[in-house]
């Protein structure tokens, strides 16, 4: 356990970070404001990133900071654009099947926790001389290049898919055509009028219908 021979400071830091990660992770689903929820999630991710750095995986920890900072900002933007109650002005608790969800969460924790406590894993810590960033780089651009490149290709496919899905011109005509808001209660009347088409092309189409 040479390379993992960390001091008391690391243990205290880990304890604080672990508490922070769990508490903020829990608060994500217990806050009234959806924007605040996304920032709680960001704090949880950053705490895990710092723990990764404590574990000598510097590259992954820092990558986590950057990725999550951007992701959660995007998430907060989406909250403001689409969701009700982004600022938490009203109490909010929008849940369904909560008992089952609590049960599944607790069961997941207990099963995985039992595995952590009861299973025996090999005790093979990172060797003292290993440079984690260099070894990761060599792996990604050497032996595992195909995997790395495939991930890039999948990300490109995702970009195309995202544009197709979110385009204003839907696959079967205008995406917002005939769009009606859902009823206030299940099966009730729509709570509003159909959305006005913003695009010039859609407006033109509408115009023709009237004549």
């Amino acid at each position, binding site marked *: 356990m040479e390379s993992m021979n960390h001091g008391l400071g690391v243990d205290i830091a880990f304890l604080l970070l672990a508490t922070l990660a769990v508490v903020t992770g829990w608060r994500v689903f217990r806050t009234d404001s959806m924007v605040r929820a996304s920032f709680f999630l960001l704090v949880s991710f950053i705490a895990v990133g710092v723990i990764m750095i404590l574990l000598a995986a510097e590259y992954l920890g820092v990558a986590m900071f950057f990725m999550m900072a951007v992701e959660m900002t995007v998430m907060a933007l989406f909250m403001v654009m689409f969701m009700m109650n982004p600022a938490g002005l009203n109490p909010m608790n929008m849940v369904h099947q909560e008992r089952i969800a609590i049960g599944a969460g607790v069961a997941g*924790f207990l099963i995985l926790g039992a595995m952590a406590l009861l299973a025996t894993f090999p005790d093979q810590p990172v060797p003292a001389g290993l440079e984690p960033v260099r070894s990761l780089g060599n792996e990604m651009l050497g032996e595992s290049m195909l995997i790395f490149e495939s991930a890039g290709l999948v990300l490109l496919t995702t970009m195309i898919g995202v544009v197709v899905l979110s385009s204003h011109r839907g696959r079967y005509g205008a995406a*917002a055509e005939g769009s009606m808001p859902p009823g206030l209660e299940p099966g009730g009347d729509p709570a509003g009028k159909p959305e006005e088409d913003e695009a010039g092309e859609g407006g033109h189409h509408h115009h023709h219908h009237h004549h």
Partner: protein
Amino acid sequence: MTLTTLLLLAAALIGIGIYGALSQQSFVMLMMGLELILNGVMLAAVAFWAFSGAGVPEGQLLTIIVMAVMAIEMAMGFALVVAAFRGKQADMTESLTGLKH
């Protein structure tokens, strides 16, 4: 900081994530639950790499792959939110009652 405590932390994050993914009605809150699950998975992967894997580089690579999965999940999730909002003006799972376009 031992492998056991790290795995317990990962299990806690995954458990909270399962709760969130199953209980939340808002699409984006549901995605936050999925993200928390992946957060725990990444932590467990790094913990195994550091304590049980003798520092093999594939352990770190696995975490990179999970990060890519997370990016894909977020991007596709938001695209689906936009598509559902255009079609149904809805931001809640209950509003989607069919698989029509």
